[in-house]
């Protein structure tokens, strides 16, 4: 039986010496000490025996199963930023598109109401409005506003009484005007052309309150 070594500074380093985790200088110092100290050499032998015993019975652990049970790695913060930025940008465009749709829808309703009003209004006041309405675009707010504000500018009172009755306007025509109208109607093709330009011009020129529909005049009379 060996007695204990009194050099505590070396004894405390023996486990690290066996694990080979000492810096070179300290390892050399312990090596020199072990050559002269039976107690510490015996202690090193015990440490090695215990290590071997535990290595022999070390329970096997299923590393793949442990890894599979682990929580998923968190999403990196750097990758999350572009996603948020893209989402925000996408959200902006969604809002812009929604506003444009609302503006377009509202404008369409206003224009539809105006068009209905135009049909009972004098022809000279309504014809330009009909021509403008299909060209109004949502991104051109100025155009839409101009159209919307221009329409009420037409004096409705002047033609309102004239346009109350669709057929009543003919009573104001002279015989010559009626004859001219009949000649023009007789001269029209029975089958409307696919080209709206040919039909719009003569109809607009008729001084009657008949107004071409907002389909480019492509319809039979």
């Amino acid at each position: 039986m060996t007695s204990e070594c009194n050099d505590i500074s070396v004894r405390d380093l023996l486990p690290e010496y066996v694990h080979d985790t000492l810096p070179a200088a300290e390892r050399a110092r312990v090596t020199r000490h072990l050559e002269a100290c039976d107690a510490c050499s015996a202690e090193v032998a015990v440490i090695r025996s215990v290590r071997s015993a535990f290595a022999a019975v070390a329970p096997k652990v299923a590393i793949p199963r442990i890894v599979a049970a682990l929580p998923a790695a968190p999403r990196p913060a750097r990758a999350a930023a572009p996603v948020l930025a893209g989402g925000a940008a996408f959200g902006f465009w969604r809002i812009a598109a929604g506003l444009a749709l609302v503006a377009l829808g509202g404008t369409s309703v206003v224009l539809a109401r105006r068009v209905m009003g135009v049909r009972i209004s004098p022809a000279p006041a309504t014809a330009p409005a009909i021509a403008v309405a299909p060209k109004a675009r949502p991104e051109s707010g100025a155009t839409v506003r101009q159209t919307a504000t221009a329409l009420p500018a037409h004096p409705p009172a002047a033609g309102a009484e004239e346009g109350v009755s669709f057929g009543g306007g003919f009573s104001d025509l002279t015989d010559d005007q009626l004859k001219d109208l009949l000649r023009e109607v007789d001269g029209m093709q029975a089958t409307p052309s696919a080209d709206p330009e040919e039909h719009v011009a003569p109809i607009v020129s008729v001084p009657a309150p008949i107004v071409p529909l907002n389909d480019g005049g492509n319809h039979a009379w």
Partner: protein
Amino acid sequence: MAVPKGEDDAAVDAALIERYMQGDQRAAAEIVKRHAAALARFASSTGEREEIDELVQDTFVRAFNSLETFRADSSLRTWLFTILRRLVLDRKRAERRRGNTVELEEGHAVQAFDALDALVADETAQRVARALERLSPMQREVFVLRVTEGTAYGEIAKILGSTEGACRVHYHNAMKAVKEFLDDQ
């Protein structure tokens, strides 16, 4: 000048943790590979014989679920050992409540540690196992951590909730007892 292995290990663990926090799941596998065997050895030194695999798995799951709380004032392995030890104690308390009395406290005559004795066929290893059986639980835990893992006293104190000085005393008393037992055989 050579970098001490402990510092090197800490740097590797820190890099792996960083990679995992950045979304690299393979870093988690590397961490498990680095520490699973040591955790299993420590688990067996606490008297656990069955479900060590499950115990180690629970340790890692608990650690990774709170990895953002890990602070580098101790090593990752020390932190893992601390978690495992708490799990062991929780299990033993639960077993005790169920009536399966397991001795936990220092100084009890009956020791739960017989894992090595049951498993080791080698004669020298069996004698080591019997020597360890004679130690108190605290002495055995300090001794095993110090001898099998080369854990520093300061780290052992953190794992066991003790002081560095107390751990040093436990270790030298344990070493003396083991040496005497082995010399008498």
